[in-house]
């Protein structure tokens, strides 16, 4: 080891080697087409397997048959007969649950008494599988739409409350201090500092809540629904009609991807200030 630093070229006796690079990885970067490629590859594999016979028709329906079922569903007009009631249930139920969830979450975040009173309650109802309460909702709200709205609302409400008050708690206190130091009114501080500051957390809570809403939609349609994606899937399932089952599942997946993309759009709009 040389004791002194040499200028480049002053020590020709030592061999020069490039410093090995070791800083790669751990930095996810968007790779748009990879996700799609995985989908396509899996579907192609299933198609090939079912045609070649090493996947039996009882294991997995042929993707092209599922597509055909879907086209029939669309052409017979049944698609919208199922989709419209489902979307209505989803929108009404989620709107109620998310609305109440965000409002209560903000109140919990802002007022110590509300927090002390409601946080244990929320913690108690959070782990209840909401599906288990479906019979109860039927007794309370009847077998019609109201019990379905209630189930979806209840299921979206709990994650939304928790996400919202966590987000309010995480708002930078120095910004609130700043607002107070300029004599801003309480309402202004909440509206202009707390709410925008909590928005990232609220939106990621919304993402989870809406996914749960889609899961609960199927559960809600198990009881007394003649139309709806969930009812369609359940009927196909009880008849072991795998093509129709898969067609229904694909609709739910597409619904989920659409919702998620919609929230991504809202995030890019509202949170443009974050990098």
């Amino acid at each position, binding site marked *: 080891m040389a004791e002194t630093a040499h200028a480049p070229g002053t020590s020709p006796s030592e061999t020069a080697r490039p410093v090995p690079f070791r800083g790669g990885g751990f930095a996810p970067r968007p790779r748009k087409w990879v996700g799609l490629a995985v989908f396509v590859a899996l579907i192609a594999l299933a198609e090939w397997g079912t045609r070649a016979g090493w996947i039996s028709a009882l294991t997995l329906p042929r993707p092209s048959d599922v597509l055909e079922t879907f086209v029939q569903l669309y052409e017979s007009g049944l698609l919208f007969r199922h989709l419209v009631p489902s979307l209505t249930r989803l929108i009404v139920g989620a709107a109620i649950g998310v609305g109440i969830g965000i409002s209560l979450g903000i109140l919990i975040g802002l007022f110590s008494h509300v927090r002390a009173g409601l946080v244990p309650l929320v913690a108690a109802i959070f782990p209840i599988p909401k599906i288990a309460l479906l019979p109860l909702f039927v007794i309370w709200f009847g077998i019609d739409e109201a019990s379905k709205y209630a189930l979806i609302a209840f299921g979206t409400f709990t994650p939304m409350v928790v996400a919202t008050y966590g987000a309010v708690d995480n708002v930078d206190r*120095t*910004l609130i*201090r*700043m607002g*107070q*130091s*300029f*004599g*801003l*009114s309480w309402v*202004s501080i909440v509206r*202009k*500092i707390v709410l*925008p500051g909590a928005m990232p957390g609220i939106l990621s809570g919304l993402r989870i809540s809406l996914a749960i809403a889609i899961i609960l939609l199927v559960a809600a349609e198990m009881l007394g629904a003649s139309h709806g994606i969930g009812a369609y899937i359940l009927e196909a399932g009880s008849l072991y009609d795998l093509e129709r089952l898969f067609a229904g599942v694909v609709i739910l997946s597409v619904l989920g991807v659409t919702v998620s993309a919609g929230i991504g759009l809202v995030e890019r709009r509202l949170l443009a*200030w*974050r*990098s």
Partner: protein
Amino acid sequence: MDIRLEGISHSYGDFEVMRDITLHVPAGRIVCIVGPSGCGKSTLLRFIGGLERPRQGRVLQLGQAPQGCLNPLTYIFQDFALLPWRSVEGNVSLVLEDHGITGAAARAIIDDVLARTRLTDFARALPRQLSGGMKQRVAIARALAVNPAVMLMDEPLSALDSQTRELLMDDLISLWTRANFTAVYVTHNLAEAVRLGHSIVVLSRRPGQIREIVEIDMPLARRAFGDPELDLYQRRLWEMMRDEARAADSELLHG
């Protein structure tokens, strides 16, 4: 407007932070408060601005705030405290909106304070696009917009690199020369204190007590970087503080 502190003592639980601080901040002067970290400088500034109440003693405002003053006691924070979702002009307009100043009246004030802080070209930029020095100039512009009687500055330059700090000191001096505002300026940096302070209050380590008040008569506009007279003041201050700072540094933080 003058500020007077009378016998301020404070503790958090059993944790005594400061003891019997009595101090007068005359109008139109900059009073620097220096002291080792943890001696209660930020706490004292929060008392002066009414963000927190001391256990004992009181903070008095003497005289009326000048006409057109929207927020007599106005802070400038070390970490800038800008809303990241508002543009530069949005951050300034935030403090005007609550006073019902919008539209053309707000426009005039915003344009004026951004010009005074040389930010006119960045009015629509978001905080994340700005350097640290620019962010602090936005915070200064926001403070100027409410036409404060007293500026309360808590280590406003401590988060900046030393070149930026020099530039901003010059900015502060020229702003003061124009407006002669009253200021309480907390810092742990003695070079800043001798450049900006008409008087320098030296606090002991926790519990903070006033050890000495050093007056510097040289006009602010004449105080230059590396001035030998200022260096002498700075050395004197450091001799006063060295043992305190060493002792403060080897104390455990409370839990």
